[in-house]
């Protein structure tokens, strides 16, 4: 009879679920108010003509259709792709190289690691000032170096052909420290015994790197590639403060184009459509990376 007075298992579960929801409610509220709701709103706006002043007018897929014939949109997408092609492999390779170089048990190594991390925590405005000191065509260090070797001066950020490589270089300088730390963590997770066994078997340094280090950090490499690719497609601050998309739009990336459409040209509907296309591109790229990782990433 005593068992009859106890709540049934179903009731107990319901009670626990209610408590779980109650404890999770601040986060759920945050998720709905600051993520889900704006996401759905922007999906709706992407199918409207919305100028921020008058009420949105539903236009179906007109904004998406416009994008196909918007030469500027395609140009910015091309600029973004070019930036990504330069930035992603360079940063990944350099971060890995630095991590290997700094993965030593020597005095003062922490100082070097910290030094590479300093640009990561600097704001883009500060970095823009530093970059100007380096790439200013009249007074910059870069042209002084070229001059030292008897090479002609370059208009780094003012030359349409050089502006994106220069921006990619600065972005690598700023971001490489963070990815280096991820690689360092990956390197330190590889058991030392594997290297010892390989040495006993007479494996060369290159073979140890090729057959132990690379597979050992393939999970980290995958993470770095995914993070860097997403970061590149979302790049905004850097071009906003350093070039404002110039010269003549040569460094206008897609998110800057989106910002201008929405916040300067009163076309929030079109800007939302661009945002969704960008989201789909990021998603597709990430899915492709996830699909390909099965062939080369080892989690053991």
């Amino acid at each position: 009879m005593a068992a009859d007075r106890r709540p049934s298992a179903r009731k107990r579960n319901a009670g626990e679920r209610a408590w779980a929801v109650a404890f999770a409610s601040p986060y759920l509220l945050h998720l709905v108010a600051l993520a889900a709701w704006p996401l759905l709103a922007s999906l709706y706006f992407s199918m409207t003509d919305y100028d921020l002043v008058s009420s949105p007018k539903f236009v179906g897929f007109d904004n998406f259709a416009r994008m196909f014939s918007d030469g500027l949109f395609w140009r910015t997408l091309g600029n973004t792709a070019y930036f990504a092609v330069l930035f992603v492999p360079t940063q990944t390779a350099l971060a890995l190289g630095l991590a290997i170089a700094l993965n030593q048990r020597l005095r003062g190594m922490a100082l070097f690691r910290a030094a590479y991390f300093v640009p990561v925590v600097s704001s883009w405005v500060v970095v823009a000032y530093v970059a100007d000191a380096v790439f200013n065509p009249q007074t910059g260090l870069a042209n002084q170096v070229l001059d030292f070797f008897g090479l002609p001066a370059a208009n780094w950020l003012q030359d349409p052909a050089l502006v994106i490589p220069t921006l990619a270089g600065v972005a690598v300088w700023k971001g490489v420290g963070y990815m280096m730390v991820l690689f360092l963590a990956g390197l330190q997770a590889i058991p030392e015994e594997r290297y010892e066994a390989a040495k006993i078997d007479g494996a060369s340094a290159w073979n140890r790197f090729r057959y132990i280090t690379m597979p050992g950090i393939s999970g980290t490499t995958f993470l770095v590639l995914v993070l860097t690719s997403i970061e590149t497609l979302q790049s905004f601050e850097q071009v906003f403060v350093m070039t404002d998309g110039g010269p003549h739009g040569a460094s206008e990336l897609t998110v800057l184009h989106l910002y201008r459409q929405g916040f300067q040209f009163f076309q929030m509907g079109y800007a939302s459509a661009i945002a969704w296309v960008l989201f789909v591109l990021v998603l597709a790229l990430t899915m492709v990376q996830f699909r390909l990782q099965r062939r080369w990433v080892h989690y053991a």
Partner: protein
Amino acid sequence: MRVRMLAAAAVAVLTMAGTAACGGSADDSGAVTLKLGFYAAAGDPADTTMRELVKEFTAANPTIKVELDVAPYVKFFERLRTQIAGGQAPQVWLSDGVLVQEFAARGALADLTDRVKTVNADDYSGIELNRDAKGRIYGFPQGAQTPVLFYNKKLFADAKVAEPTADWTYDDLAAAAKKLTKDTNGDGKPDTYGFRTYSPGFTESWWPIIKAYGGDIVTDDNRKVVVDSPQSKAALDWMLGTMGKDGFAPDFATTEGLGKGVVHTLFATGRVAMSYGIYARTLPATSAGVDFGVAPLPKGPSGRGNVAIVNSWVVNKKASAAQADAAWKWITFFSGEGPQRKWAELGEAIPINKKVASTALPADRHAFLESLDAATDLGANAVWSEYTEALAKRVNEALSGATPVDTALTSGQKEAQEVIDRFYAGQTQ
């Protein structure tokens, strides 16, 4: 019971929110709260003076309480757009002159045409520059800017070159500029240039030059782009020559390489002996202690190409009747002699009160007033920011030498026209 308490709480919250939202309307005592927005950097003299004027205004109008909404230029207009979307925009704000029609065409501004009829239009500059294609006025002038020719008296005296006169032509300008260009350290590059031709701010660069050469940028109520013409080509070719074969002006890359905004200090730092500059450029030149004069823009084949921007007070269309009346009171107060004289002391804009302008500006600055009288507007329409950006990209490509002038003008005209057509297609206003 719990449901009732929740409902009561919800009603209380909604009532409070409603009360807060209605805070700007006049209450029974006739008091009204007015949110007034303007752009200025914190601690800037303009910020300080505006706050002092608001104090004077509220002292004279005790039933009006003013709440200030201030931010630097870019931030102010970025925020304004979202404030309008959220129904939180000021009831009266200072607008860049070229943005008045952008906000008006989207229904954000109150039509001030009838209110403007109540003042003597002859007493103020710039009212007509704010009139749209249908004769409506959405902004009342606050301060005016128009480019004139700045020249450095010392550099002219050192080079023994006669100072500019009102009769100068573009040939006279070029002849003097060549004599004023000096390579003082012998590195083969000029250290002082005679003239600053290119500027990312086209009001002080290619816009008036194209007009002076007989070209135009937009016509037909600023809805038809006509920049692709032999006259515009002649103007841009002249500009390219100044930076190229004639070599008396810094080229595109040199100017852009100076960094954001530094182009405006070229004259103040003595790097160029002459420059087109709006009234606000007198401030850095004066601060730097430059002994300078101003002259009318030189005459081109078709005149001087004077243009002007009239920054204006605008009233939010969603303002209540009491707020709109209070806003108009502020506008007429600000346009009065006392406030205009105080604002003129800042030296950042030509006073729009003609009586004040004629006395507050020194006699040797009256070229600004003559230029303002002769000026046309800067092609303002509902998509000014977007179409001028499309056009400027192409013109700057030509001025940097990256694209032939005629190709740049053809593509610039096409792309700018597409922007205008996209907006006005199907519009009735």
